């Protein structure tokens, strides 16, 4: 039913986690079979947040990423689709130590969208791009008949230059590395869930924010291994992806993850696990143990990562799997979510 390369694409394929991984692989397989290689000269496509542009001589310092944005609702506490699009692509560069410099936007607009609404979203995009030091250098607009899109879809592309000395990536992960979470996870997903399911959640605001100002100071550490923003699929998915990509074991402590009271409340009501809720301004950072303390203090100096916390480490046990030490001292595994996260019955 939801099996690989049978049936049709479901909403679950768009939810991060295991099914999205399958969808991506099924697409990339065509390119691999056609003999394409990534510029990084790795035989398989690197599953990282952005790619360095290069030729046969090796990867350059220029990096590129792109992303599509179809959020519902379009306006949410803490932002809107315009701000989200720019933060989303800029953060995919930032987590690889790349300074975001250029932006392109492609808008697919549904016939009937008020100009006032379009203006509001573009004003947010422009404001966020300016704040992040990014220049809009290309773009496109398409208008589709009423009913063919949900008000507006935005595809965005960002380019930038590597500012880190080392190339950051999951390949750098090694035993003993410390995992730091930059802020309380899942607030974007929780805010959207509250809006979608009509739950009154005062104080719950999406964490949607530019990560470059927060992460740039960390580039001074030569023990910085890799970073990832915990978007679709949440922190849990990022941890599983890292464990699998680097063939390492990961252990985290439940009590050290700074989940906010508001996010926990939404999860309690809907039966969600905060580990799988999306963030749009929260990064997981892996760093060598001897530099972890300094790295954490630097993060905490920035208001958007003032609640940064060490949440776990890379361990020799259970390779390719994520274990979580629970509040009551038990141990359980954290798996990637499958399909759309659905609210439970009672």
């Amino acid at each position: 039913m939801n099996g690989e390369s049978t049936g049709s694409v479901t909403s679950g394929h768009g939810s991060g986690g295991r099914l999205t991984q399958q969808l991506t692989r099924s697409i990339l397989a065509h390119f691999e079979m056609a003999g394409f290689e990534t510029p990084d000269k790795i035989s398989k496509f690197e599953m990282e947040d952005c790619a360095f542009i290069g030729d046969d001589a090796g990867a350059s310092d220029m990096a590129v990423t792109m992303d599509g944005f179809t959020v519902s609702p379009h306006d949410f506490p803490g932002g809107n689709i315009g701000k989200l699009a720019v933060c989303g692509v800029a953060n995919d560069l930032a987590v690889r130590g790349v300074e975001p410099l250029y932006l392109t936007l492609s808008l697919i607009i549904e016939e009937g969208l008020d100009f006032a609404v379009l203006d509001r979203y573009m004003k947010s995009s422009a404001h966020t791009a300016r704040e992040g030091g990014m220049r809009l250098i290309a773009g496109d607009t398409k208008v589709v008949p009423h009913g063919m899109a949900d008000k507006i879809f935005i595809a965005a592309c960002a380019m930038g230059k590597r500012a880190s000395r080392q190339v950051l990536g999951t390949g750098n992960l090694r035993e003993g590395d410390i995992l730091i979470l930059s802020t309380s996870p899942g607030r974007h997903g929780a805010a959207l869930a509250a809006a979608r399911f009509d739950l009154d959640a005062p104080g719950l605001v999406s964490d949607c924010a530019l990560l470059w100002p927060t992460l740039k100071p960390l580039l001074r550490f030569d023990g910085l291994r890799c970073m990832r923003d915990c978007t679709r699929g949440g922190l849990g998915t990022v941890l599983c992806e890292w464990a699998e990509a680097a063939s390492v074991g990961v252990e985290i402590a439940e009590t050290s993850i700074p989940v906010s009271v508001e996010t926990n409340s939404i999860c309690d009501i809907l039966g969600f696990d905060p580990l799988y809720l999306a963030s749009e301004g929260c990064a997981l950072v892996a760093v060598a143990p001897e530099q972890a303390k300094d790295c954490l203090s630097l993060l905490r100096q920035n208001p958007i990562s003032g609640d940064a916390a060490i949440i776990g480490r890379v361990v020799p046990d259970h390779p390719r799997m994520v274990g979580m030490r629970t509040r009551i001292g038990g141990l359980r595994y954290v798996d990637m979510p499958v399909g759309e996260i659905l609210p439970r019955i009672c």
Partner: protein
Amino acid sequence: MTEMSVCASPSAGIDALCRRLAEFLRRAGRPVAFMEVCGTHTVAIFRSGLRSQLPEGLRILSGPGCPVCVTDPSEIDMALSLAKRDCILLTYGDMLRVPGSSGSLLDLKGGGARVRTVTSALQSLEVARNNPTSEVVFLGVGFETTAPATAITLRQALRHGLANFSVLCLHKTVPPVMRALCSNPALKIDGFILPGNVTVITGLGDYAFLTDELHRAAAVAGFEPEEILASIVDLARQVAENDFRLSSWRLRDVPEGGNPTARRVLSEVFQPCDALWRGLGLIADSGCRMATPYERFDAAKKFGLDPPTAGPDNGCRCGEVLSGLKTPPECELYGTACTPVTPIGPCMVSGEGTCGAWYRYR
């Protein structure tokens, strides 16, 4: 007579509770098996890591406590046929992925059927009012925790004379299935962990038969790991001391009579009827049928749907898993043919299903 001992604060600490549990198990002098009958308990026991803390000599089994899992495929087929008839079908999110005999509501939704998710039955009244030219059907699923909301919705639908609204009523009640399980001699269950959220509605009286009549241990627990562990400790005590008394281990009090308002509306709107449970068969008086004034809102009657019938065996051992006769890894399909990505039975699909919980948290 049922005696209640409400624990104000099971804060003695997990380790201390585990030591007491081990002591009672030693005094019992044999391996014991307890069953929880609530999907939220299933998940809480795994998610909290409690399972990894429990001493030797104790098995915790999951019973028929996940509303998605106990829904028979033929009942899902009824819902699928409504979605195919161009009704607006409103459902709790959990039901979307559950497979019927051909596909799921999510598959139909992907193909354009008007299937929408709600978090409360009452939202369906608004949908019915806003879509006067469409038939709006609410899929009533769940135990005593969700049935009152369906009942209140039906009462309002009657008051407002909503002609385009109906309910496919698949609600089930917990005590009859527990009685049915206990009558199976193959099933060796020494005690039951009862769900706090159900007893808040029903009161404790409906479960007194477990201790008083059937001499099984029984304890109500909330969903925090400390509450669950405290209930398990008391179950072991009841077994060790051969002293079966229903107890409550919930920080928030369970009123002995339950919620009188919810009970009143349930008895006004619903009457007990036989219901089909996935893998367990037809169980007498375990379902909810709409009482006479509300029959006009019965979607099964309104659209002439075939009543649920037990279908052919597809190899899925849901019935044995739901009755505690097998653990999920003992099913031949578990982890091979049946995984969260390619689920065969709802126990693997649902967020609160036993097989899914075993697979995800291992």
